């Protein structure tokens, strides 16, 4: 994970003498490392209180049938105690294998995978293309660069509303399509076009980050490599294939992983674009939110169970991704 800094401590401590006994090691370890532990204490405490405790509590909730009708709540001056009960793994069983589980979980699961794959692929390809164009000696490329990162600079919740105006029934996009005598789909109502619109908006939002990161990667490739390739008679495609792509590998593996995590967890775009109106275009994250907070009664237990499943998917994916990178002798930057 972090090879770069091993030099720091490796140099300072070096190899140690034969290992002493356990008690001694603990005492030594304490003496040697107590300041390291003192320094990480704040984060450890914060993570324990703000992440670990809610996580464990959430895990417990997924084993119950908690919803907004049976959890503890205060109405006016009356305090009502919680009456939900422990039901074991039934929530998970119901989500994954229960009746209509395809409509409730698997359809959203498939759509989430498609959404993530398509969005990240589009982000990466368009970002790389633009980065390559911007990496040329070109008049006005700073201006282009500044304009092209605009979608990243403006907060997502603002730009998504801009898109909503454009995609609305009588909005500019359909007006333009009409004027060109093309069919004008109802972007915000029809399932397929909802999905199309969601991917389009998210691509628009996500390209600048990829572009800028990859541009940084391109600029760090040694130009003598290109010279050498040209001397060897490589054409443009070969230079791209055998110099540019390998040179970008470490940046790429990092930004692709980040992109996958962010897109998989992307809440704002779909939530703000459709609200609760598009049950079929919800990815798992927004669907879990809908279960927990968008409907009445709020189904806290199932929503939390979706959350845990999502986290499990991400952790499994990330560890495979890292193992795959390691096998190809690459290190992940993060």
């Amino acid at each position, binding site marked *: 994970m972090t090879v770069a800094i091993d030099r720091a401590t490796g140099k300072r401590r070096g190899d140690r003498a034969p290992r002493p006994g356990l008690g001694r090691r603990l005492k030594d370890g304490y003496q040697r*490392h107590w300041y390291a532990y003192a*320094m990480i204490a704040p984060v450890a405490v914060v993570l324990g209180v703000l*992440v670990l405790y809610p996580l464990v509590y959430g895990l417990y909730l997924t084993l119950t049938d908690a919803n907004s009708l049976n959890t503890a709540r205060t109405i006016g001056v009356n305090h009502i105690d919680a009456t939900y009960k422990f039901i074991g793994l039934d929530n998970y069983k119901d989500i994954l294998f229960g009746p209509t589980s395809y409509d409730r979980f698997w359809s959203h699961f498939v759509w989430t995978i498609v959404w993530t794959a398509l969005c990240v692929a589009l982000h990466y390809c368009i970002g790389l293309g633009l980065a390559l164009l911007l990496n040329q000696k070109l008049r006005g490329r700073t201006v282009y660069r*500044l304009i092209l990162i605009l979608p990243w600079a403006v*907060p997502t919740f603002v730009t998504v509303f801009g898109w909503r105006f454009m995609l609305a029934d009588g909005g500019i996009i359909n007006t333009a399509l009409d004027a060109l005598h093309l069919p004008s789909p109802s972007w915000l109502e029809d399932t397929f076009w909802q999905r199309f619109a969601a991917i389009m908006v998210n691509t628009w939002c996500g390209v600048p980050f990829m572009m800028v990161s990859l541009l940084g990667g391109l600029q760090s490739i040694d130009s003598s490599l290109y010279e050498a390739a040209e001397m060897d008679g490589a054409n443009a495609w070969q230079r791209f294939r055998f110099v540019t792509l390998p040179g970008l590998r470490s940046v790429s593996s990092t930004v692709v992983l980040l992109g996958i995590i962010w897109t998989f*967890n992307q809440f*704002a775009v779909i939530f703000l674009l459709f609200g609760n109106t598009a049950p079929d275009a919800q990815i798992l994250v927004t669907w879990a*939110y809908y279960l*927990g907070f968008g409907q009445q009664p709020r189904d806290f237990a199932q929503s939390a169970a979706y959350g845990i499943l999502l986290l499990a998917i991400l952790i499994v994916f990330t560890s495979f991704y890292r193992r795959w990178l390691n096998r190809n002798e690459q290190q992940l930057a993060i």
Partner: protein
Amino acid sequence: MTTTTVETSAPVTEQRAAPETRRVRRRGENGRLTTLASHGILTVASLIALFPIAWLVFLSLGPDKDDYLHPGGIWHKMTFSNYSFVLQHTGFFDWMKSSLIVSLGTTAIGVMVAATTGYAVSRMRFPGYKKLMWVLLVTQMFPIAVLIVPMYQILSDLQLIDSYLGLILVYCSTAVPYSAWLLKGYFDTIPFEIDEAGRVDGLTPFGTFFRLILPLAKPGLAVAAFYNFITAFGEVAFASTFMLDDSKYTFAVGLQSFVSEHDAQRNLMAATAVLVAIPVSAFFYLVQKNLVTGLTAGGTKG
């Protein structure tokens, strides 16, 4: 570098090009056609990047809430009335206050808590190091769905729903690990020799950190702070759920409140959106260069 070069063999002939009659292009120069194509593509891309925002600005000048359906009409009745209405008759300044309190609170706590940890994981190896790094990595990829339900329950018990502190605490759950990670990357770029010099001169590890490294790490701290700020500022899910009183809405929630089931005041919404976007994006442009290096620093170093 020049993937779109049309005549790719030209640069190769550079050294022995003297006998040839046609003009020889130097390395990195492109043919006219390639340049034209590049400009064409970049212009189209820029227009696509620009248009939704320009459109939002344009619509915000139309005085009527259905003007977005007849954008042509806006040219004749352009006015700033939406802006003055938003500033005078809506909760704009309340929302601004909430947004700033929550974002700045998150930023301050996130950076202060994370700084020493970033240093520790950058410089020291201790038992449990790998586990800590793993935890820091995993907490960053928590989907909001994991924590939102238990957080809602816990904060309700503590009477912290609908309070700034509650929202700040929720945001810190992601801001703190992320800042620690970002700062570690920055501390890694500070030469280790500086620490050694400090230690030789008799500073404790804490002294080294506070007196030598922290002053040097100001740019890194700024990037982490800025990143926390825009993340907290733009967060939608928690803010929409936990803030109930419309005077405590952050911008991300307040903007949604213009569109309800019965009425959509799109003109006011567009004006508010523009008012929010201008300072934030200006700020973003000021620091964007540092932000990009900060986010991918590890990546380019390999």
